[in-house]
């Protein structure tokens, strides 16, 4: 790797709330430790702009929503050896968090942006790794960065949120809450359910998700079915 073997890392942002970068900055002192191991070559929020040159790892948050986003992500891909999509916007176009899968109606009203809806990075470029969630979890970012730096194969969670949940005897679904834990990819340590909030599914579907069965359970228990769950079922069946 370049520069006395100190890896060059870029942190980029497309259309998004930039919460994932704020989450990374919330590593606080640890972030400074990380900075002693890498060379940050791009991070607009921190005031670093280096338009050219090769990058070892590029972290990109945000969805592709405009022509300039598309141009930007293509240029980033050209420059980087490894490209990582961070956060739900970059990974899925934000569809799990915003709970919208169609947007046809809005498209009609908005001729200006042409073909651009909220698109995941993978629609335009090859993505090497994904960090899901809205926002990402800083520990997961840290672990992935470390894996990449020591060239270890990153771990991708294959389990649902329930298998990490501490509420075994007081399940939120039993309490009548529309928790999406049974169909959502784990790795977050059941962050929301362990704080008495139902899982909203921000990390996307896990590989064996059975959306149909969950809708059935909600129906039987008289739990309100989240508006987007039916659409999610269609999407999961078509993919």
């Amino acid at each position: 790797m370049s520069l006395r073997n100190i890896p060059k890392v870029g942190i980029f942002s497309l259309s998004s709330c930039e919460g994932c970068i704020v989450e990374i900055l919330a590593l606080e002192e640890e972030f400074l430790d990380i900075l002693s191991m890498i060379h940050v070559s791009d991070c607009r929020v921190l005031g670093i702009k280096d338009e050219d040159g090769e990058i070892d790892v590029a972290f990109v948050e945000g969805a592709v929503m405009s022509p300039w986003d598309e141009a930007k992500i293509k240029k980033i891909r050209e420059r980087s050896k490894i490209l990582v999509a961070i956060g739900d916007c970059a990974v899925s176009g934000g569809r799990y968090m915003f709970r919208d899968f169609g947007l046809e109606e809005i498209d009609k009203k908005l001729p200006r942006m042409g073909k651009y809806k909220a698109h995941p990075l993978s629609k335009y470029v090859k993505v090497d790794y994904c960090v899901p969630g809205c926002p990402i979890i800083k520990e997961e970012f840290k672990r992935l960065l470390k894996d990449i730096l020591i060239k270890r194969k990153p771990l991708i969670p294959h389990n649902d949120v329930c298998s990490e949940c501490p509420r075994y005897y007081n399940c939120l679904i039993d309490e009548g809450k529309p928790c999406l834990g049974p169909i959502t990819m784990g790795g977050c340590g059941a962050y929301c359910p362990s704080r008495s909030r139902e899982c909203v599914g921000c990390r996307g579907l896990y590989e064996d998700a059975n959306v149909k069965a969950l809708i059935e359970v909600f129906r039987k228990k008289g739990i309100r079915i989240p508006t987007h769950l039916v659409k999610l079922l269609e999407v999961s069946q078509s993919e």
Partner: protein
Amino acid sequence: MNNVIIEEITRIEGHLNFTIELGEHIRAKAEAMEGIRLLEDILVKKYYWDIPDITSRMCGVCQAIHRLTSIQALEDAFNIELPYELGIARELVAIAGHVQSHILHLHFFVLPDLHYKRSIIDLIPSHKELVMKAIRIKRVMDEIVKLYGGRVVHPITPVVGGFTELPSKDISSQYLDKLKKVYKDAVEITEAILNISWPDFKRETAYLSLKGKGIPLLNGTLHANGLSFIAKDYEKYIKAVIEEYSTARHYLLNNREYFVGALARLNNNYNELSENAAELMEKYGYKFPSANTFHNNVAQALEIIHYIDRAIEILKELSSTDVKKTMVKYNVTEGYGVSATEAPRGLLIHAYKVDNNGRIVMARIITPTAQNYKNMERDVEAYVELMVNNNGIVKRDIEMLIRAYDPCVSCSARFITI
């Protein structure tokens, strides 16, 4: 003469370009380059319980206040009143979010400018102590947001009707001690900002903010230069303007540009500053009202102390008894609700119409930076004119002026669909 174009201004939240047309009349354009994020349209037809989760995604820095404001607007629509202890817990979440945002802006974004450094990373070798102190206080604030709001970025536990859970009184008293321990550092990092000699640039404009006891963040009436109105009447005074060159809406107050933010808050409430904050203001010779946009940084710095003082008061109350009931019962009814709050960057308004099933019929969100664009443009024009008459145009100084607004472009970028 050529135009001056500043592309992708660094160390602000979101993507903003500025074009300044030179000539007989200088004209500045604030161009939000954020992809159109149709948040208001996405909210329509959704059930009310989804709204706070989605609105908090409008912005990664001021997510806490977006969440609280949409909750308050929905509670207004359903006529829900919270008991006192839940109210102060909400205020604590707002305050902690506020102070951590100010530290991010002042110490991460502004300070490097003043030492001719491009980034806080470059500032570490020469000012490690100061940077570490700022980070330490930001960490305590983040932890408070996490404890009372459930998460640092995009809180989860505040919901319509209260909280899903709140920490015990023992934890509140732990954090009271923690906050007291870093108080001296907080004063020190505040003084580092107050100690700076800011450019002398004055331009009269209107300053809009909430007004009330203790410089309120979550409720109060709206005030600007003698004008006074309640949140529900906002449409009578605040009007949207659509500019072809920007993906964000711009706004006018009674047909003129206006300023929202810490400077507006202090211009309207300066005699409500906490004792310690007022003392610092006097010590460094600042006076409010001020017409110097750069003093927005000063106002933010003073607010750090003012709101930490208030947080200490709240934590004292929360550490005396456990909050037993974290939720109030309510009925979903058809209604219209508005909430006006103070985000770190200024006045924030959420308004919703809800049908009797609890579905959103109409959503309007007015963000601080969107309100500031017109004022920003007039300020840049006046500042550039001053530069042309003096030593010539310095792009870095224009960027500093824009940065003084603490702009947050991603929340401002939404398109009107009429």
